């Protein structure tokens, strides 16, 4: 029997596979078989659903019921209740934190309700390994239209009118990029896709490549026609094995049935596509470095001009578009530029995908119209802080090239222009939410560590400058900060920005600059008072138990040094000479009875002595 009464779409993105998708799928299929429902209920693996925090997740059609955190043990009950008896199984449904009521219908869950899906239009609806299912969702119709009915100029005009801008972060108008390459005469041109997603905390492109590989391929076919290229390369980092596997599978399938290769749709247009595996260097996300890397050379940027649209890969005109940009092309061609502009703002049209991570409840992948206030993303979609008792402190956008946005600015709408005013950047879409327990100096140090390590070394200001800044930040977090360090950091930042060749160096100081801008007081407290108020920098804080202590012993059990004494239901006390400022007691306490105080004076010389005590 071909038709099923119910489709169970289990998420098989990397996140959910890690939490047990395959085991759950096997268990589901076994139970369904046991109840002889195989002909009625079909189990389908899909790409990332976006609600990664609650994995493995499953969507049940046609009822639109959303199950989360499914375990193999729960499967028999779930199948019996829902698929045999038709009673949706409440235990595994989504619970809204505030109300404790069960919300079964997917489109009622705030996480999904505020989203507008364009890039992720097929998320959870198709099997990423099935070309037929992609076609069922209007797949390759845009390619057919572009190849058989449109001239390159018409394609470029449509994309330009739509206002599509590069989703890799810089926001360069994609249609304009295509136009430059299209106007350059050459015997060979290259259409390239940038899948070298490297920002810490960002996984948008991975999800698109895994969940909907054909949407990227279709975008590339259309782009290739626009610029007059017959060769394409998708540059993906080797750390994304599932994305590589699904892309390759999709390319093979397309070659087999003639969606790639010679004379596609009998239009006379040829296009070949291959995958190039990157070795995971951050700088290879920069376009000129990426092209050198494909040529087999060391991935380092080179000065522009000449721009890649004139001299790119193998010195031929080339266009490099980000995964998310390409995934938007097909719907624009099919529905027109007016449709695309129906959401978003004048300058920033359409939608943007964000990877929500950090101290936020609903970690996952979200797509919202441009212009949505940050507040909506963090509180309505993201569900607020993981720990409800903690206050929001800042959201980091744009990864190592971006900056932190404080609470006072949460009304800012997400558009290229508005975000850049805050000192952060739109970036590729990483959004790391931090609560009040975050030390902003340590945060900027974390990003500087990353860029100092990933600097390719070509330009001295970036290679040496980031290292000097990192040393200064390390000194500040370890209590060796001096008067004037903040100003030195600012000066260095401006010099590095002004004198680096590529985007890596030009943006590397942003995390430092933006944290100084909004949290200068924290830097000053670290330097002048040797006090880290969030208790992250161990050398600059001490812990003390207050009268709020109920004597529950939670901290006693958590302490790795047995430094806390106190009987049950009696006030506990930390023995300061044994304490290593690991913060375990602070995290363990349910009554917020552990206070973070400035470092104790004697501690400054103590570390050596403490280590000896440990070894004895």
């Amino acid at each position, binding site marked *: 029997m071909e038709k099923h009464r119910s489709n169970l779409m289990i998420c098989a993105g990397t996140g959910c596979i890690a939490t047990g998708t395959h085991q759950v799928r096997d268990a589901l299929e076994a139970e369904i078989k046991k109840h002889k429902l195989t002909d009625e209920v079909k189990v389908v693996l899909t790409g990332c659903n976006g609600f990664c925090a609650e994995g493995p997740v499953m969507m049940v059609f046609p009822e639109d019921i959303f199950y989360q955190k499914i375990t193999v043990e729960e499967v028999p009950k779930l199948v019996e209740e829902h698929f045999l*008896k038709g009673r949706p199984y409440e235990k595994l449904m989504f619970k809204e934190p505030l109300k404790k009521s069960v919300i079964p*219908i997917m489109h009622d869950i705030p996480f999904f309700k505020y989203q507008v899906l364009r890039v992720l239009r097929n998320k959870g609806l198709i099997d990423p390994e099935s070309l037929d299912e992609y076609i069922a969702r209007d797949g390759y119709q845009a390619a057919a239209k572009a190849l058989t009915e449109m001239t390159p100029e018409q394609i470029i005009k449509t994309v330009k009118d739509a206002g599509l801008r590069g989703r890799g972060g810089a926001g360069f108008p994609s249609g304009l990029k295509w136009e430059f390459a299209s106007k350059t005469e050459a015997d060979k041109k290259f259409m390239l896709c940038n899948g070298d997603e490297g920002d810490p905390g960002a996984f948008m492109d991975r999800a698109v490549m895994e969940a909907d590989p054909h949407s990227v391929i279709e975008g590339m076919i259309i782009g290739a026609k626009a610029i007059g290229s017959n060769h394409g390369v998708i540059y993906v980092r080797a750390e994304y094995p599932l994305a590589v596997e699904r892309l390759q599978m999709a390319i093979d399938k397309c070659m087999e049935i003639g969606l790639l290769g010679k004379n596609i749709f009998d239009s006379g247009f040829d296009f070949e596509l291959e995958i190039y595996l990157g070795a995971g260097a951050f700088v290879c996300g920069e376009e000129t470095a990426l092209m050198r890397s494909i040529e087999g050379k060391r991935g380092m940027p080179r000065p522009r001009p000449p721009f890649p649209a004139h001299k790119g890969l193998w010195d031929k005109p080339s266009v490099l578009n980000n995964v998310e940009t390409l995934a938007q092309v097909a719907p624009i061609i099919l529905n027109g530029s007016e449709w695309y502009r129906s959401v978003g703002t004048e300058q920033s049209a359409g939608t943007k995908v964000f990877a929500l991570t950090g101290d936020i409840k609903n970690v996952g992948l979200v797509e919202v119209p441009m212009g949505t206030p940050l507040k909506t993303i963090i509180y309505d979609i993201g569900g607020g802080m993981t720990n409800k008792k903690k206050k929001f402190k800042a959201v980091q956008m744009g990864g190592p090239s971006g900056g932190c946005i404080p609470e006072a600015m949460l009304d800012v709408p997400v558009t290229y222009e508005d975000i850049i005013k805050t000192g952060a950047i739109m970036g590729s879409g990483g959004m790391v939410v931090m609560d009040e327990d975050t030390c902003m100096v340590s945060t900027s140090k974390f990003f500087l560590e990353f860029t100092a390590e990933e600097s390719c070394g070509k330009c001295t200001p970036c290679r040496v400058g980031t290292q000097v800044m990192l040393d200064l930040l390390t000194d500040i977090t370890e209590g060796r900060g001096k008067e004037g360090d903040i100003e030195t950091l600012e000066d260095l930042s401006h010099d590095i920005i002004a004198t680096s060749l590529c985007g890596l160096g030009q943006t590397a100081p942003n995390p430092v600059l933006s944290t100084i801008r909004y949290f200068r007081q924290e830097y000053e407290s670290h330097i002048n008072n040797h006090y880290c108020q969030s208790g992250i920098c161990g050398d600059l804080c001490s812990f003390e138990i207050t009268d709020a202590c109920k004597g529950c012993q939670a901290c006693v059990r958590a302490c790795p040094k047995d430094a806390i004494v106190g009987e049950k239901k009696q006030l506990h006390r930390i023995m300061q000479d044994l304490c290593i400022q690991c913060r375990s007691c602070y995290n363990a306490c349910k009554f917020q009875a552990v206070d973070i105080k400035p470092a104790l004076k004697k501690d400054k010389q103590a570390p050596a002595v403490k280590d000896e005590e440990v070894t004895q």
Partner: protein
Amino acid sequence: MAKLTIADLKKIKDKQKATFTLREGGYKAKVTVHMGTCGIAAGAREIMTTLMDIISESEEKVVIATTSGCAGLCAREPMATVEVMGSAPVKYGDLTPDKMKDIYKEHVQEGNPVEKYAIVIGNESTY
């Protein structure tokens, strides 16, 4: 495999239509078979099998079948609710495979509720 043409795109899309009606919504009619313990004991499984067979044999791509719990009127099981888009749902009781076939033909396809098998007409949403 032969080379894909633009006409093939449409054929593939049509072939997948039933599946995607189920996933995307936009169906013309929904038939809910009530499968509480009482329903199953009274033979709801058989009704469901019959229904699934009719749907897959017919050319109809926009009718979906689904299950639900006990409808509350256990004495009249097996029961089913037929909802044709834009008109009130109708509950049928004391079903047999033959009655199901009649209902499908008369109500789902033609849009005329089968009065002799109907218990109640009106809005009691299934979820």
